[in-house]
């Protein structure tokens, strides 16, 4: 891409032959138009570039182009010890940092056969659900903005601020928390945590009802979303859609129910389902999910009051000793030195763990060769797989609908490109 010296508009120097097989024959005879959208387009939710083939305003084919945010996180993790790469997981899906940390820690714990104390498991559930609400709020704000409900944006970001304050309270960081560690948590939950979460539980239900009304009673929004971006249940599974995008099509599959992790089996909640598989249903499912998350948080907070045990495993082969022990115990000093210089040497093997992230199945594949650095870390990120279905979803829709469809599959490009 270079700039035209007279107009300063970007000029594409590529050859149309490069698109052969990806767009229809009409593009080569000039009957349809090739249009580039992104990567700086505001409604593509980050740096997504889509090459569109248009006939009038109708999308004949659409080719998503990703990789603008590729940062080589998986490669970088191979050069760090297991524990030191947790910080990088936060930076993949920046709206779901706790979830990324959780799946990586769960994969490590499965590989090491490391037990997690109950208090830490419940705290993880509570924080993962707060993160889910945080992520859904941003999605709702931006998705509404795309589709003519401009006020949701300011409301959503106002509410999100309350949640970010809680993350800052527990971890010291608003977004990149790095709070979950193998074997438990970085430190115990602070005393103020309970009051802050209680505030969320008291105020959020009414607010979510408000947003539900703002969105579902807005005729512009309803007209622009119902019947748009339809995908059937069979197609959704074949295209690997997961999370709300799958449940919007009526497939009842939630990893929290199907393969519970981190004590989710002890919580009561429902899995909201859609019926039609269109943009509107995916919206409704996510709004309902926020209410279910609040239910889980409420149960979790009750249990945290009783569960006062340790917050981290005391297996000293993997978990460094608390600072206070270093002054008293020679063994603690040795463990501390060993774990922070060389790291630990897990057994050889390969594990795959997945959790239900806000966007769908978030998986972590971890291969160990017995050395202190992982041999291979791979994240199965929901944004990446869900976005690959965009071609199918956007076909034969208006270009204005495309914006709503991209919003409805809820992508985060940092999650997609890694």
């Amino acid at each position, binding site marked *: 891409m270079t700039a035209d010296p007279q107009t300063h508009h970007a000029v594409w120097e590529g050859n149309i032959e490069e698109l052969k*097989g*990806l767009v229809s024959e009409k593009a080569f005879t000039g009957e349809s138009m090739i249009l580039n959208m992104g990567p700086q387009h505001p409604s593509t939710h980050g740096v997504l570039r889509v090459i569109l083939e248009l006939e009038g305003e109708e999308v004949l084919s659409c080719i998503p182009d*990703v*990789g603008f945010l*590729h940062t*080589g996180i*998986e*490669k*970088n993790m191979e*050069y760090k010890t297991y524990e030191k790469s947790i910080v990088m997981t936060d930076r993949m899906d920046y709206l779901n940092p706790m979830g990324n940390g959780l799946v990586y820690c769960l994969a490590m714990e*499965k*590989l090491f*056969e490391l037990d997690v104390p109950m208090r830490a498991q419940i705290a993880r559930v509570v924080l993962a659900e707060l993160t889910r609400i945080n992520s859904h709020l941003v999605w709702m704000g931006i998705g509404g903005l795309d589709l003519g409900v401009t006020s949701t944006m300011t409301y959503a970001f106002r509410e999100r601020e309350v949640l970010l304050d809680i993350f800052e309270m527990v971890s010291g960081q608003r977004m990149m928390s790095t709070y979950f560690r193998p074997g438990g948590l970085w430190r115990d939950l602070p005393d103020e945590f309970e009051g802050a979460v209680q505030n969320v539980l008291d105020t959020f239900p009414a607010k979510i009802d408000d947003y539900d009304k703002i969105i579902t009673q807005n005729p512009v929004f309803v007209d622009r979303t119902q019947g748009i971006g339809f995908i059937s249940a069979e197609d959704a*599974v*074949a*295209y*690997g859609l997961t999370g709300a995008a799958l449940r919007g099509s009526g*497939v009842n*599959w939630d990893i929290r129910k*199907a*393969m519970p992790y981190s004590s989710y089996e002890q919580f009561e909640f429902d899995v909201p389902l859609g019926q039609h598989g269109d943009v509107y249903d995916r919206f409704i499912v996510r709004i309902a999910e926020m209410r279910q998350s609040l239910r889980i948080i409420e149960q979790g907070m009750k249990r945290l009051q009783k569960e006062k045990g340790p917050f981290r495993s005391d297996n000293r082969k993997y978990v460094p000793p608390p600072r206070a022990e270093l002054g008293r115990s020679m063994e603690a000093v040795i463990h501390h030195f060993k774990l922070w210089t060389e790291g630990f040497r897990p057994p050889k*093997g*390969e*594990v*795959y763990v*997945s959790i239900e992230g806000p966007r769908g*199945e978030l*998986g972590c*594949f971890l*291969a160990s060769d017995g050395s202190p650095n992982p*041999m*291979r870390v*791979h994240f*199965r990120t929901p944004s*990446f*797989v869900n*976005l*690959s*279905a965009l071609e*199918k979803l956007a076909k034969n829709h208006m270009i204005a609908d495309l914006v709503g469809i991209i919003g409805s599959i809820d992508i985060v490009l940092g999650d997609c*490109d890694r």
Partner: protein
Amino acid sequence: MSHPLDPKQTLIDTFGDAVEGSEEFRGELTVIVKAEKIIEVAQHLRDAEGLKYNLLSDITAVDYYPAEPRFGLCYHLYSMAFNRRLRIKVLWSDGDAPVPSMTKLWPSANWEEREAYDMMGIVFSGHPDMRRIFMPDDWQGYPQRKDYPLGYETVQFSFNYDEIAKHKPFAKK
């Protein structure tokens, strides 16, 4: 509803020699199959009664350098009917015949295989759109391989400003 079948035994019974081995680690079953049979195996796993692995969660590759065969291409399958996972692994080295593409069975394999090609250099046959996905189209090499070094960039300070600016003729444009 039929009963769940043991995937490893079923594959050995149905495909015989195509199954090269299996591993079990931390309750996860991995079945290693020959690359040329991967489509038949996957189709059987997806459609047969008692297996029904209907969701292709993930495709990824591991570089076992310097071991041979060098790459392990892992397919993570999930069965919604029986709520269980299975890992199918194909061992592959540079110069082997391309691995048949899974896109006809699961459209979701399209991008996953492009990623395996882009990062590891594993070649697929019958793929509709075999381009790089993350790296630029003219990129040399496959970044996720073990013999591909981790890159870095020297930070530009006042004392080495000119030296680094020399390497970046495009930065000034």
